[in-house]
């Protein structure tokens, strides 16, 4: 049980820290762009979700939503911290199985891998969206997103941890295949959101996520060195 407890503890501290940093970055950089895009939402053609699911999409006006301002920011912060811990748990689990992170610098490399898996790869086919932008069927996009994340992670792991040329080639293929298949796209890309606003949003989301992953990875590596006795000395081999 101690391995589990220590892993959760490590992920919780690193995730809490990265989530707080991410909330600060979002408040300054991405949320203002989201709010700006929402002003176009009223003017948007009824969201066509590929399957004519416009009615589905409409966030139920009856449902609870946080009030704009402090309350909304609070829930964004909560979501950031909770998910920061979720990503932290995943990072700690995978890196421990691979032998454990030896310090903040190696943690940074793990963070870059997380960024490549969770932001870069899915973002190529499904760039970050603003409100009032058309998109394909939600379920189809979620399936593609999850499959791309899984394939990219498996591909990177084959390249990084198996010293074999055929397996490295297989890993590379796994990373490429989701983009050959292609992400589900909307019937029409027509949107009232100006292209330059969206372009800024894509860059901002990508860079803030890079910073989130860099902080999460480095924090995990740094904190881990503080109690390496508890999780076992990092090894170079797979557990």
């Amino acid at each position, binding site marked *: *049980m*101690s*391995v*589990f407890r*220590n*892993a*959760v503890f490590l*992920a919780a501290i690193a995730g809490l820290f990265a989530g707080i940093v991410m909330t600060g970055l*979002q408040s300054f950089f*991405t*949320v203002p762009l*989201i709010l700006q895009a929402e002003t176009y939402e009223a003017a948007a053609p009824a*969201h066509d979700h590929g399957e004519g699911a416009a009615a589905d999409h409409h*966030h*139920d006006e009856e*449902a*609870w939503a*946080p009030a704009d301002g402090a309350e*909304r920011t609070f*829930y*964004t912060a*909560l*979501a*950031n911290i*909770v*998910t920061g*811990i*979720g*990503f*932290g*748990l*995943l*990072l*700690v*689990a995978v890196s*421990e*199985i691979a032998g454990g992170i030896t310090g903040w610098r190696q943690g940074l490399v793990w963070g870059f891998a997380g960024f490549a898996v969770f*932001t870069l790869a*899915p973002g190529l086919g*499904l*760039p*970050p*969206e603003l*409100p009032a*932008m058309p*998109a394909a069927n*939600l379920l189809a996009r*979620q399936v593609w*997103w999850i499959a791309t994340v899984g394939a990219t992670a498996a591909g990177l792991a084959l390249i990084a941890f198996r010293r074999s040329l055929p397996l490295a080639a297989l890993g590379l293929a796994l990373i490429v295949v989701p983009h050959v298949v292609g992400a589900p796209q909307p019937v029409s890309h027509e949107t009232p959101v100006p292209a330059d606003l969206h372009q800024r949003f894509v860059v901002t*989301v*990508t860079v803030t*996520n890079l910073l989130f992953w860099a902080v999460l990875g480095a924090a995990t590596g740094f904190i881990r060195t503080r*109690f*390496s*006795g*508890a*999780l*076992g*000395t990092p090894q170079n081999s797979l*557990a």
Partner: protein
Amino acid sequence: MNTSTTFGAVESAKARVLPLLMTGLLGVFIIAVSGFAQMDVVHNAGHDYRHSMAFPCH
């Protein structure tokens, strides 16, 4: 409690894998709920976050 003797040579690598898998599954579960769950309340609460993380949201 958390001395290095608890782990190291005593605890084999295999004994570590199961709790680490549980750790990873817990992480996946948390990400699934906060990033993908369709419940309106969860969606509305995490709206700005989901957009900012580029999760397929709308």
